């Protein structure tokens, strides 16, 4: 708990401007509204949310692929947000990424060898033979072999492609890898293979992961901590087990409840319970107050008037919900979140 954070995001805002017909600035779209996160060296933070929650925008901002409107992203002491996506090579090589779709994230015109050694070509002075030796070693680390070097991506299955993407991300021995939905495009029977591989590499190399996903149950398996996003806000954050087993924010609860249970009888009971308390039909976006209040079963008057600060949760972490205010009026983290 004492190590300084490797990545520290503070009050991050990301706004996209839709272009109007004349190429002028149109309506703003606030993808991320004041998110704060931190990841220590070797730690895995799972960032969970539904589409449009802003989780991928955060990933892109960390990787220098999306513009930051305001706020700070500090990585190992350097301020990334101020660099306007032009990271110096010394910094670049320390943050790598694996993207969701293994079918488009590998260049179809390149061989596996080219793909895996590309980071080495850009950042090192290794000779061709040295690069190849390194590529073979990396392939073996992800359970592929030397014979795959000369092949093109289309000759591989989804799971194998994701292994290649991971090998390429590992080539520079980065301190952090951003994993943007790394298994959601894969078959169920291969998903766990990739999760296990990521876990094993983390244990062996001490890499920190920022794991973006929509599936809380899956994220829970590999994360040390989990942050839950809703419409650009981080509504809950805490130790993985606590968030998964004892969610504090109503949205986190809703996310967990929405995943069908594997026990059909229990699922039927849950459905019956849900039917008796139908959720209100309303706009997803609440302009003021708590962003989730329109869909929240326990919304109060107060939720519309002010936005809930981050209250600390007894078993660890924080959640932005007034329900916690009654239980424990928390000052420390609340002050920092509203500032």
């Amino acid at each position: 708990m004492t190590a300084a954070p490797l990545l520290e995001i503070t009050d991050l805002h990301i706004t996209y401007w839709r272009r109007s017909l004349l190429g002028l600035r149109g309506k703003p779209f606030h993808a991320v509204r004041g998110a704060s996160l931190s990841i220590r060296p070797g730690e895995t933070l799972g960032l969970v949310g539904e589409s449009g929650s802003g989780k991928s925008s955060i990933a892109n901002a960390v990787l220098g692929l999306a513009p930051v409107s305001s706020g700070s992203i500090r990585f190992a002491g350097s301020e990334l947000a101020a660099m306007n996506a032009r990271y110096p090579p010394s910094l670049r090589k320390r943050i790598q990424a694996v993207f969701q779709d293994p079918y488009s994230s590998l260049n179809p015109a390149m061989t596996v060898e080219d793909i895996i050694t590309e980071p080495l070509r850009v950042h090192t002075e290794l000779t061709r033979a040295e690069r190849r030796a390194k590529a073979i070693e990396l392939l073996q680390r992800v359970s592929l072999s030397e014979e795959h070097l000369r092949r093109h991506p289309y000759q591989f299955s989804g799971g194998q492609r994701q292994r290649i993407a991971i090998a390429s991300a590992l080539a520079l021995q980065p301190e952090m890898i951003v994993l943007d939905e790394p298994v959601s495009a894969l078959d169920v029977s291969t998903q766990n293979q990739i999760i296990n591989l990521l876990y094993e590499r983390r244990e062996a190399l001490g890499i920190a992961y920022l794991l973006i996903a929509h599936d809380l149950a899956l994220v829970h398996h590999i994360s040390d901590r989990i942050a839950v996003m809703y419409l650009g806000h981080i509504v809950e954050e805490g130790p993985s087990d606590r968030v998964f087993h004892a969610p504090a924010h109503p949205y986190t609860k809703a996310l967990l409840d929405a995943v069908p249970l594997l026990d059909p009888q229990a699922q039927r009971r849950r459905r019956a319970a849900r039917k008796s308390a139908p959720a209100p039909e309303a706009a997803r976006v609440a302009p003021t107050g708590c962003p989730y209040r329109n869909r929240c079963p326990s919304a109060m008057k107060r939720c519309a008037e002010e936005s809930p600060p981050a209250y600390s949760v007894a078993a660890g972490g924080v959640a932005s919900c007034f329900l916690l205010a009654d239980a424990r009026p928390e000052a420390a983290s609340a002050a920092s979140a509203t500032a």
Partner: protein
Amino acid sequence: MLIVAFAATVLGVLFLLAVLADWVSPYDPLQQDLMSALQWPSSAHWLGTDDLGRDVLSRLIYGCRIAVIATAEATAIALVIGVPIGLFIGYRGGWWDWIVMRVVEALVSIPGIMVAIVIIAILGPGLHRAMIALGILFSTSFLRLTRGVVLAEREEVYVRSARVVGASETRILLRHIFPNIAPPLIVQTTLTVGAVLLAEAGLSFIGLGIQPPQASWGTMLNTAAAFMDLNWFLAIPPGVAIILTVLSVNLLGDVLRDSIGRGIAAAAPPPASAPRVAPLLARAPSDSPQSSRSDEMLRIEALDIVIAMPGATEIPVITDVSLAIAKGETLGLVGESGSGKTLTGLAILGLLGPVLRMTHGSIRLNGRAIHDLDQKALEAVRGSEVAMVFQDPTTSLNPAFTVGSQIAEVLRIKNGLSAEDARRRTVQLIDRVGIPRAAERAQAYPHELSGGMAQRIAIARALSCNPSLLIADEPTTALDVTVQQEILDLFRDLQDEFGMAMMFVTHDLAVAADVCNRIAVMYAGEVVETAEVDALFADPRHPYTRGLLSALPQGSSRNPPLPIIPGSVPRPGTWPTGCRFQNRCDRRVEACEARIPLVGAERMVRCVHYQNARLKAVLS
């Protein structure tokens, strides 16, 4: 392959003749002999003589040289100007793109030959100057093509990956994007070669290209045109030369394009180590009979589907699939990609497409065979008796029409409702699928709705004609989990109300557990287990079902290593004989090599261990 060799030979001969023209041509191409003008082919002049008595064969051979120089020059200039500018403005965009594209548009809005004439007027006439003019002219098509492809490619995820790696902009453009735009460029190059040959003829004709008395194929054609009535044969040699050259270049271009293989995911031929495919092709008698059920809506019996690519052996993708769904029942068809679950659904609708063919089996709906209906009869079935909901509602709805009109259209065509009645019923349906302010939403276009709303519309459309069978193909896979829950609730409610049979295709066992009464688990083109939903989850029997269940994220609470099924689903054509799961199974025995039937009555399973267990139970 023979054609490719021929094309290569033609171009090889062309180059040889161009280089060796001084030695191989029988006469001086410029030497006139007015006494023997316009001769037909003879032993002295193999291809005859032209209006000035010059030997046509010699002029044709020297024309090769001009053809090679002209096309190489003009095409190279077009490439050198067009591609880099196209790359730059496509990648950079903004003002650069705007200015360059306006200039290009101005250029291409004037007839090409006019532009060339203007350029030559500035540069002066002559072959090289004419080719510079053509090069500039043709560069616009390279520029636009390159820009267009770069615009698409720069959004690809692999470009983001390259950025994250730290590749410079130049490197991304040249090393990552450029190889991917090569295939269309090659095609464009070969087309340009043909166009240059013809344009050179035109320019020479008006005296701006090759200067007389020099010979080019174009000038020869022009001469021939003037003397058509005296000696029509004059047009044949240069004509054939141009046709052969252009055809050969195009052919070789296609071969080159295909050989740099940009991930066309043609199924790789089965590796030599897996020769055990053939026995599967023999049609064994169905070993998965379905017991008859009361109130049966759909019955599929011993369905076989093959991929029949022209010139290739047929590869089975579905074998011996038998299913039955009763009225008001939901059957879950569960499996990973490549299991054949979607194809089974499409086969019912007769939407297999040209490459896939049903080779065996029967499909009965309400007791009527629908597998051998012709297209017209099938159209009557689709939409009214069987309806389908697809995975991605944003693409299954037509973006050009309001959602209301898309539902009303079905009602008018299938049910013959009047426009007014159809509109009223449409609003009712939209309201029924849980969309507030239905009348207003009927006027919305698909892009104005969220994914969940759009899927509700797709469901309303599917239900508009009270189908006996609703096929839902991964209807919630593209949706967020909270929206998925709402849609699954909706499916259950609607089935209670409409009473149709439902086939729910999904890869997610948990979703199947939620909406289905019975589940059929598919693996590699066959059903490996069917059971009532409670029984399946309480006691999965096939090792694949067990593996799938334990692999689900909510199925275990352990930390990694998580339970896995080793390997991946084999592609059609590489299935092992006997049990197709054997290579990934931890309970494999020798008996798995033999073909395993699907056995049982209420519960059926295709596994050697279960058969043994039953056998033991019977014996003891």
